[in-house]
């Protein structure tokens, strides 16, 4: 069957766009052909530095003919109508048939040649291609990612006649820019094309290019007793930068090995697109690099290796300059000062303000995760400082990592007493401590924590507080790191929720979903007991406090009243009557009233916190679903209003185990039946009977249920108090038999009012007992 080969040959296509371009080309071709009724046996697209190629196997030479019956005028219509129909269809009178008093004619449409359709489709593809960025060139109007030079388009070994903005399609293509002697070659089908490309030093398939790089690189390294530091993203990129990728091992001046390995690797990767190399089994890097060239040079790549080594030296000299400069003098103090001029978000203040909030929050969280509050506050205060360092300015991806190194290196002023002169200390503490009355308190003297152990802990916390940075990244585990990591993420979440920048649909510009999942994973992996409501409330209070620059905040109540609430009493603000902050009074007692306080007018702390808890619940649901847990069980547990993630997950797990047993499923049915009866009763004008049921002498099943409930109560109490949720489920399981028997033998809706009331009271007890474990009404099934 005939084959289509299309190549769009251009100037160098950015590496990052090639993968999508191949996928788009494949999709557009498949859709276009299908729309024309042309079904192929197979279709594949390739993308490389200078070409997009499409091969479609097994296309018909033409569309199939179609016969279509068309309805004509009524029999006996005037001749004019009939003539019109004949003209329109190109038929003659005797080709028409009469049916149901109407004329019908069958029109045969000959299928169009596939080549014609291809010509139109290629033009559509070229003109409609969705490059992330495209351009015009010369005097033309056509848009492509870079100037389009040639179109090769052959179908069934024939050139498809087509022309787009002066580019006439042919059967010519070009080989490698430097290695191919003749450059131009002719191809009439994919085999010829593929073979010619290989002969002209072009590897068409990106997977083959990657393979060639990896194998070549590994061989070169192995021969020198080295090992490649593999990097999938970099491999993908360099495979998009060379048509004839040729790995070359170069030497790096070993003097640079005193730089942190992350710095060397990042410099190699981002500036030069080199792979790093190490000695197997040894820490750090080896003094070499692996560059992927686009040519095989007659000198074996010596000149290329030497040239690249020189550039790398210049790059690493720059890095060393940053490394040296960054470690001078009161570096952290200098950086913290600079953060005062860096805006985090227009509505959330400067980075310095954010740092204050994180430090205050870290202090709150520290005791919950077994960390020292003062150390946590200090680590938090220092955790963003490296953003102002030269090195992180150059390599943003080294944030945290550099802070960790710098905190470990002299002259981090642990020994010197005070860090960050002039940086306002946060008093957004919710421990009830009165504010000091000044916002320029220097960071407390950290001397009590002096010592290398403390320094290392703080450095690790600075380094790890961004973690986990993605689903594959490890969570922080050291208590100090956990405190800072949680404070960082919770401040982000609370801040953006408070200014109503919540993620919607696929949009999550501030990566709040990632932050939420990071909180969940960190808390769960360490079994940390962090009550979400009060912690989020503390974070929110810290935000308002810190942005409002006030010492007490005034809250507006439902009845229009306004109350002053001092720091430390933020729990009161979540009383049912408090509906929002009051801008008119915000700042009245503090200094430095400014416009920013307007942002909090009418902010409802309760709404922010409950929205955030719901957001976290949602993320938890997603995370648990990935582990095969049911989302409805998470809802059933969250409905209890618990805000302790560890306890919630323990409940979900126990519940999940219980519902997998026969007792569990049966009891669930019994529960639903009970609830339905109670709901029906609740709709009646007569209220549900209140009070405790009494033990009925008869029927026996009613008495037995009373006994079972009486026995289960204390067991449930004990198990729940001990957070033994499996035990709680076992206690519930004991109800299953009596509940089943009760429904089987006892008619709730007795004619005797006293009997009926007692039975309804029993059912309420069942509902309440089970409701202490989970909201079973939200469980599906």
């Amino acid at each position: 069957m005939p084959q289509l080969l299309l190549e769009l040959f251009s100037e160098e296509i950015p590496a990052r766009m090639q993968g999508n371009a191949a996928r788009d080309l494949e999709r557009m071709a498949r859709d276009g052909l299908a729309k024309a009724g042309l079904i192929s046996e197979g279709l594949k697209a390739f993308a490389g530095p200078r070409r997009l190629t499409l091969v479609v196997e097994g296309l018909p030479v033409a569309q199939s003919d179609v016969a279509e019956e068309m309805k004509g005028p009524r029999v006996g219509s005037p001749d004019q109508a009939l003539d019109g129909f004949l003209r329109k269809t190109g038929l003659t009178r005797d080709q028409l048939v009469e049916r149901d008093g109407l004329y019908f004619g069958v029109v045969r449409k000959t299928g169009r040649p596939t080549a014609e359709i291809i010509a139109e489709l290629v033009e559509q593809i070229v003109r409609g291609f969705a490059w992330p960025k495209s351009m015009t060139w010369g005097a033309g109007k056509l848009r492509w990612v870079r100037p389009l030079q040639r179109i090769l388009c052959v179908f069934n070994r024939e050139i498809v006649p087509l022309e787009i903005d002066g580019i006439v399609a042919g059967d010519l293509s070009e080989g490698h820019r430097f290695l191919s002697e003749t450059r131009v070659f002719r191809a009439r089908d994919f085999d010829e094309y593929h073979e010619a490309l290989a002969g002209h030093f072009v590897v068409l398939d990106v997977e083959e290019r990657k393979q060639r790089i990896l194998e070549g690189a590994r061989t070169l390294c192995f021969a020198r007793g080295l090992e490649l530091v593999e990097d999938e993203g970099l491999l993908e990129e360099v495979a998009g930068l060379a048509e004839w990728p040729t790995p070359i091992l170069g030497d790096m001046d070993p003097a640079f090995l005193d730089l942190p390995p992350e710095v060397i690797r990042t410099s190699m990767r981002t500036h030069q697109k080199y792979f790093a190399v190490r000695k197997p089994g040894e820490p750090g890097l080896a003094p070499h690099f692996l560059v992927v060239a686009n040519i095989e040079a007659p000198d074996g790549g010596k000149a290329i290796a030497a040239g690249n080594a020189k550039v790398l030296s210049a790059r690493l000299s720059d890095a060393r300059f940053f490394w040296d400069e960054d470690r001078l003098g009161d570096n952290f103090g200098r950086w913290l000062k600079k953060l005062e001029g860096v805006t985090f978000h227009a509505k959330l203040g400067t980075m310095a303000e954010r740092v204050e909030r994180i430090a205050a929050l870290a202090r709150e969280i520290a005791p919950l995760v077994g960390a020292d509050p003062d150390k946590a506050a200090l680590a938090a205060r220092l955790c963003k400082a490296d953003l102002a360092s030269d090195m992180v300015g150059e390599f943003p991806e080294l944030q945290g990592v550099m802070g960790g190194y710098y905190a470990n290196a002299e002259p981090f002023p642990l020994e010197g007493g005070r860090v960050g002169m002039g940086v306002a200390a946060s008093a957004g503490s919710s421990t009830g401590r009165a504010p000091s009355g000044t916002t320029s308190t220097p960071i407390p003297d950290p001397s009590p924590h002096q010592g290398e152990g403390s320094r290392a802990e703080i450095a690790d916390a600075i380094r790890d507080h961004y973690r986990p940075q993605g689903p594959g990244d490890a969570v922080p585990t050291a208590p100090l790191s956990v405190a800072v990591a949680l404070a960082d993420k919770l401040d982000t979440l609370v801040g953006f929720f408070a200014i109503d920048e919540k993620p919607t649909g696929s949009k999550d510009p501030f990566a709040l979903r990632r932050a939420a999942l990071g909180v969940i994973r960190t808390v769960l992996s360490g079994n940390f007991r962090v009550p979400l409501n009060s912690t989020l409330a503390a974070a929110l209070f810290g935000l308002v406090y810190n942005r409002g620059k006030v010492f007490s905040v005034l809250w507006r109540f439902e009845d229009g009243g306004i109350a002053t609430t001092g720091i430390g009493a933020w729990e009161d603000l979540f009383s049912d009557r408090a509906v929002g902050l009051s801008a008119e009074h915000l700042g009245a007692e503090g200094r430095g009233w400014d416009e920013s306080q307007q942002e909090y007018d009418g902010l409802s702390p309760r709404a922010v916190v409950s929205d955030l808890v719901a957001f976290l619940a949602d993320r938890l649901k997603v995370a648990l679903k990935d582990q095969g847990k049911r989302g409805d069980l998470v809802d059933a547990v969250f409905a209890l209003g618990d805000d302790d993630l560890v306890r919630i997950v323990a409940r979900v797990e126990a519940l999940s185990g219980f519902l997998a047993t026969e007792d569990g499923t049966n009891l669930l049915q019994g529960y639903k039946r009970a609830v339905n009866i109670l709901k029906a009763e609740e709709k009646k004008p007569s209220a549900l009977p209140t009070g405790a049921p009494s033990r009925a002498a008869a029927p026996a099943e009613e008495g037995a249920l009373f006994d079972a409930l009486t026995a289960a109560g204390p067991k449930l109490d004990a198990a729940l108090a001990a957070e033994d949720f499996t035990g709680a489920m076992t206690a519930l399981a004991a109800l299953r038999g009596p509940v089943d028997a009760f429904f089987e033998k006892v008619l709730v809706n007795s004619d005797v009012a006293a009997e009926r009331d007692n039975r309804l009271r029993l059912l309420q007890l069942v509902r309440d007992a089970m409701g202490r474990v989970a909201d079973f009404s939200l469980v599906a099934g």
Partner: protein
Amino acid sequence: MRLNQYWGDQGCVILQPHDEQVGAGTLHPATVLRALGPKAWNAAYVQPSRRPGDGRYGENPNRLQHYYQYQVILKPNPANMQDLYLGSLRAIGLDLKLHDIRFVEDDWENPTVGAWGLGWEVWCDGMEVSQYTYFQQVGGLDVSPVAGELTYGLERLAMHVFGVDNVYDLPFNDPASPLGAVSYGEVFLENERQHSEANFHGYTVETLKRHFEDMEREVPLMLARSYQNKALVLPAYDMVLKASHLFNLMNARGAIAVAERASYIGRIRDLCKLCAQAWVDQQEEAA
């Protein structure tokens, strides 16, 4: 010299540097203004470029606050412009079978003149030796036909050709000259030192600011004047260049807060747009 010879042979007008202080060869009116309008234009020239913030007191082997760019502008860009460019590398002695030349995505933009384009940095053995751009907009106006721009960092290229690691070691005359060898450092090192100090600490911020505001006021006034029915675009554009350099100096002096930066850039861009529009109007009237 060899680049002049080469591009002259390709039919380019060989120009001299523009005598205003500019941050890049692109800002020469032969590029910014001539890129606009329907007329074909092919030119090449050397342009001394000043980047006040890049001063390193002569202590960095390849960072300078004053250096030379070689600039080529081809409008409309010929279809074989990449080949012409590679030819120029051969012309200055690069063996393209021995050295690894790469076109690496780099989309150029210069917000102060409202210009952007798509193209590449050209790498030779991992070193950026040129910037290659197809202009799409200048002064906020579409560039049609498209102009192709090549910018060569002359010091870097020379370092590569001479195999020198430090820019100040570059020979500046024939080392065998009877008058004695002169290095780049002997010519420029003291210049770098003094200007670095002036850029970072020397200039009086208030004066720079006042001059900037003077230029800002003068540009529209100049454009309102005309000679032989043509607005005085060229003198006005020179004042835009002055404003742009004053901004760079203020920036190096640390006198511009992060939040102000965008507004200054916007002010320069607005001035540049006025000139660009006036230029295009003149071009279209003439055509």
